[in-house]
Protein backbone atom coordinates (compact mmCIF):
# COMPACT_ATOMS: atom_id res chain seq x y z
CA UNK A 1 0.00 0.00 0.00
CA UNK A 2 1.45 3.33 -0.94
CA UNK A 3 2.27 5.54 2.01
CA UNK A 4 4.44 8.40 0.71
CA UNK A 5 6.02 10.46 3.47
CA UNK A 6 6.14 14.25 3.20
CA UNK A 7 9.85 14.28 3.94
CA UNK A 8 10.57 12.31 0.77
CA UNK A 9 10.25 14.93 -1.92
CA UNK A 10 9.21 12.81 -4.90
CA UNK A 11 7.58 9.97 -3.01
CA UNK A 12 4.01 11.08 -3.67
CA UNK A 13 4.40 11.40 -7.45
CA UNK A 14 6.30 8.09 -7.48
CA UNK A 15 3.36 6.41 -5.77
CA UNK A 16 1.05 7.96 -8.31
CA UNK A 17 3.27 6.63 -11.09
CA UNK A 18 3.12 3.10 -9.69
CA UNK A 19 -0.68 3.24 -9.41
CA UNK A 20 -0.96 4.64 -12.96
CA UNK A 21 1.10 1.67 -14.11
CA UNK A 22 -1.32 -0.48 -12.11
CA UNK A 23 -4.15 0.83 -14.28
CA UNK A 24 -2.39 -0.98 -17.09
CA UNK A 25 -1.78 -4.09 -15.00
CA UNK A 26 1.86 -3.28 -14.32
CA UNK A 27 1.94 -1.94 -10.77
CA UNK A 28 4.66 -4.32 -9.56
CA UNK A 29 6.85 -3.91 -12.63
CA UNK A 30 6.81 -0.16 -12.11
CA UNK A 31 7.13 -0.44 -8.34
CA UNK A 32 10.23 -2.62 -8.66
CA UNK A 33 11.79 -0.16 -11.08
CA UNK A 34 11.07 2.82 -8.83
CA UNK A 35 12.70 1.04 -5.90
CA UNK A 36 15.65 -0.29 -7.84
CA UNK A 37 18.04 2.65 -7.81
CA UNK A 38 21.35 0.78 -7.58
CA UNK A 39 23.70 3.79 -7.79
CA UNK A 40 21.55 5.95 -5.49
CA UNK A 41 20.92 8.42 -8.27
CA UNK A 42 19.30 11.45 -6.55
CA UNK A 43 17.20 12.22 -9.63
CA UNK A 44 15.80 8.67 -9.86
CA UNK A 45 12.27 9.75 -8.90
CA UNK A 46 12.30 12.99 -10.91
CA UNK A 47 9.64 13.13 -13.59
CA UNK A 48 12.09 12.64 -16.45
CA UNK A 49 13.35 9.34 -15.08
CA UNK A 50 9.89 8.19 -13.98
CA UNK A 51 8.72 8.57 -17.58
CA UNK A 52 11.73 6.57 -18.74
CA UNK A 53 10.92 3.79 -16.26
CA UNK A 54 7.30 3.80 -17.40
CA UNK A 55 8.43 3.38 -20.97
CA UNK A 56 10.74 0.52 -19.99
CA UNK A 57 7.78 -1.14 -18.28
CA UNK A 58 6.07 -1.24 -21.65
CA UNK A 59 3.22 1.08 -20.71
CA UNK A 60 0.99 2.95 -23.12
CA UNK A 61 2.70 6.30 -22.56
CA UNK A 62 -0.24 8.45 -23.66
CA UNK A 63 -2.51 6.83 -21.10
CA UNK A 64 0.23 6.86 -18.47
CA UNK A 65 1.04 10.54 -18.90
CA UNK A 66 -2.62 11.54 -18.76
CA UNK A 67 -3.00 9.60 -15.51
CA UNK A 68 0.27 10.85 -14.02
CA UNK A 69 -0.25 14.53 -14.86
CA UNK A 70 -3.88 14.64 -13.77
CA UNK A 71 -3.14 13.23 -10.32
CA UNK A 72 -5.80 10.60 -10.87
CA UNK A 73 -4.71 8.50 -7.89
CA UNK A 74 -3.79 11.33 -5.51
CA UNK A 75 -7.03 11.15 -3.49
CA UNK A 76 -6.75 7.40 -3.17
CA UNK A 77 -3.19 7.70 -1.82
CA UNK A 78 -4.25 10.39 0.67
CA UNK A 79 -7.10 8.19 1.84
CA UNK A 80 -4.74 5.27 2.47
CA UNK A 81 -2.30 7.49 4.37
CA UNK A 82 -5.08 8.80 6.60
CA UNK A 83 -6.44 5.32 7.19
CA UNK A 84 -3.02 3.95 8.10
CA UNK A 85 -2.30 6.85 10.43
CA UNK A 86 -5.62 7.14 12.22
CA UNK A 87 -6.65 3.50 12.47
CA UNK A 88 -3.31 1.78 12.93
CA UNK A 89 -0.93 4.52 14.04
CA UNK A 90 1.38 3.97 11.08
CA UNK A 91 3.87 6.82 11.17
CA UNK A 92 6.85 5.63 9.18
CA UNK A 93 7.78 3.29 6.38
CA UNK A 94 7.89 0.48 6.02
CA UNK A 95 5.08 -0.39 8.39
CA UNK A 96 3.19 -3.68 8.33
CA UNK A 97 -0.15 -4.97 9.56
CA UNK A 98 -1.17 -8.59 9.81
CA UNK A 99 -4.77 -9.60 9.73
CA UNK A 100 -7.44 -11.88 8.37
CA UNK A 101 -9.55 -10.96 5.40
CA UNK A 102 -13.26 -10.52 6.08
CA UNK A 103 -16.19 -11.32 3.84
CA UNK A 104 -16.65 -7.66 2.87
CA UNK A 105 -13.07 -7.54 1.57
CA UNK A 106 -11.67 -5.49 4.44
CA UNK A 107 -8.88 -6.78 6.65
CA UNK A 108 -9.16 -7.08 10.40
CA UNK A 109 -5.57 -6.39 11.39
CA UNK A 110 -4.47 -7.46 14.86
CA UNK A 111 -0.71 -7.22 14.66
CA UNK A 112 1.62 -4.42 13.68
CA UNK A 113 5.27 -4.64 12.68
CA UNK A 114 7.31 -1.44 12.59
CA UNK A 115 10.26 -1.07 10.26
CA UNK A 116 12.24 -3.36 8.01
CA UNK A 117 13.44 -5.73 10.71
CA UNK A 118 14.91 -9.22 10.47
CA UNK A 119 12.88 -12.20 9.28
CA UNK A 120 12.11 -13.31 12.84
CA UNK A 121 10.14 -10.06 13.37
CA UNK A 122 7.74 -11.35 10.74
CA UNK A 123 7.89 -15.07 11.34
CA UNK A 124 6.89 -14.89 15.03
CA UNK A 125 3.66 -12.88 14.61
CA UNK A 126 2.69 -14.81 11.46
CA UNK A 127 3.15 -18.14 13.24
CA UNK A 128 1.15 -16.82 16.18
CA UNK A 129 -1.71 -15.77 13.94
CA UNK A 130 -1.77 -19.02 12.01
CA UNK A 131 -1.80 -20.84 15.34
CA UNK A 132 -4.69 -18.79 16.64
CA UNK A 133 -6.74 -19.57 13.55
CA UNK A 134 -6.41 -23.31 13.94
Amino acid at each position, binding site marked *: *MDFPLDMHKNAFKASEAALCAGDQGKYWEMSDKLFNNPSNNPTWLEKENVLKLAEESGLDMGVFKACFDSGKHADEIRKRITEGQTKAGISGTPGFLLGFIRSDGTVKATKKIVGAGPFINFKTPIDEMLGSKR
Partner: protein
Amino acid sequence: MKNNLRWLVLSLMFFLGVQPVVAQTTQEYQDLKKEIESLKQGQAGLKQDLQEIKKLIQSVKQAPAAQGGGDEFKEAIINIKGAPIRGDKKAKLVMIEFTDYQ
Protein backbone atom coordinates in the same frame (compact mmCIF):
# COMPACT_ATOMS: atom_id res chain seq x y z
CA MET B 1 92.52 43.49 36.57
CA LYS B 2 91.37 40.09 37.73
CA ASN B 3 88.13 41.66 38.82
CA ASN B 4 87.60 43.20 35.42
CA LEU B 5 88.15 39.87 33.75
CA ARG B 6 85.63 38.25 36.01
CA TRP B 7 83.08 40.84 35.04
CA LEU B 8 83.81 40.33 31.41
CA VAL B 9 83.36 36.60 31.76
CA LEU B 10 80.18 37.04 33.71
CA SER B 11 78.71 39.48 31.23
CA LEU B 12 79.76 37.21 28.37
CA MET B 13 78.05 34.34 30.14
CA PHE B 14 75.02 36.50 30.53
CA PHE B 15 74.86 37.52 26.90
CA LEU B 16 75.82 34.19 25.42
CA GLY B 17 74.26 31.83 27.90
CA VAL B 18 71.44 33.25 29.92
CA GLN B 19 70.00 35.47 27.27
CA PRO B 20 69.28 32.61 24.82
CA VAL B 21 67.78 30.58 27.63
CA VAL B 22 65.33 33.39 28.38
CA ALA B 23 64.48 33.67 24.69
CA GLN B 24 64.02 29.95 24.44
CA THR B 25 61.73 29.90 27.47
CA THR B 26 59.56 32.64 25.98
CA GLN B 27 59.34 30.67 22.74
CA GLU B 28 58.48 27.50 24.62
CA TYR B 29 55.91 29.37 26.62
CA GLN B 30 54.27 30.63 23.46
CA ASP B 31 54.29 27.15 21.97
CA LEU B 32 52.75 25.69 25.10
CA LYS B 33 50.11 28.37 25.08
CA LYS B 34 49.27 27.52 21.50
CA GLU B 35 49.18 23.84 22.28
CA ILE B 36 46.82 24.36 25.22
CA GLU B 37 44.66 26.54 23.02
CA SER B 38 44.37 23.82 20.39
CA LEU B 39 43.73 21.21 23.08
CA LYS B 40 40.93 23.37 24.43
CA GLN B 41 39.42 23.61 20.98
CA GLY B 42 39.69 19.88 20.52
CA GLN B 43 37.92 19.34 23.81
CA ALA B 44 35.14 21.73 22.88
CA GLY B 45 34.69 19.74 19.66
CA LEU B 46 34.56 16.49 21.61
CA LYS B 47 32.04 17.96 24.01
CA GLN B 48 29.82 18.97 21.11
CA ASP B 49 30.09 15.52 19.54
CA LEU B 50 29.16 13.94 22.86
CA GLN B 51 26.13 16.20 23.17
CA GLU B 52 24.98 15.17 19.71
CA ILE B 53 25.47 11.48 20.47
CA LYS B 54 23.52 11.94 23.69
CA LYS B 55 20.66 13.56 21.78
CA LEU B 56 20.67 10.72 19.23
CA ILE B 57 20.47 8.10 21.97
CA GLN B 58 17.61 10.00 23.57
CA SER B 59 15.65 10.10 20.32
CA VAL B 60 16.24 6.38 19.70
CA LYS B 61 15.02 5.63 23.22
CA GLN B 62 11.91 7.68 22.69
CA ALA B 63 11.18 6.33 19.21
CA PRO B 64 9.35 3.13 20.24
CA ALA B 65 7.02 5.13 22.48
CA ALA B 66 6.43 7.73 19.76
CA GLN B 67 5.61 4.97 17.27
CA GLY B 68 2.86 3.81 19.59
CA GLY B 69 4.81 0.60 20.13
CA GLY B 70 3.98 -2.63 18.34
CA ASP B 71 2.62 -4.11 21.55
CA GLU B 72 0.01 -1.43 22.21
CA PHE B 73 -1.65 -2.01 18.85
CA LYS B 74 -4.96 -3.83 19.28
CA GLU B 75 -6.80 -3.97 16.00
CA ALA B 76 -7.81 -2.00 12.93
CA ILE B 77 -10.19 -2.59 10.07
CA ILE B 78 -8.37 -1.62 6.89
CA ASN B 79 -9.95 -1.29 3.50
CA ILE B 80 -7.66 -2.87 0.91
CA LYS B 81 -10.01 -2.65 -2.04
CA GLY B 82 -8.12 -1.47 -5.10
CA ALA B 83 -4.74 -1.84 -3.43
CA PRO B 84 -2.06 -3.68 -5.39
CA ILE B 85 -1.63 -7.21 -4.08
CA ARG B 86 0.89 -10.01 -4.38
CA GLY B 87 0.40 -13.69 -3.72
CA ASP B 88 -2.66 -15.90 -3.40
CA LYS B 89 -5.82 -13.82 -3.82
CA LYS B 90 -7.76 -16.35 -1.73
CA ALA B 91 -5.34 -16.31 1.19
CA LYS B 92 -6.98 -15.77 4.58
CA LEU B 93 -4.01 -14.16 6.29
CA VAL B 94 -3.02 -10.81 4.81
CA MET B 95 0.04 -8.70 5.36
CA ILE B 96 -0.46 -5.04 4.52
CA GLU B 97 2.71 -3.11 3.82
CA PHE B 98 2.78 0.67 4.03
CA THR B 99 5.69 1.83 1.95
CA ASP B 100 7.06 4.74 0.01
CA TYR B 101 9.70 5.51 -2.59
CA GLN B 102 12.65 7.67 -1.65
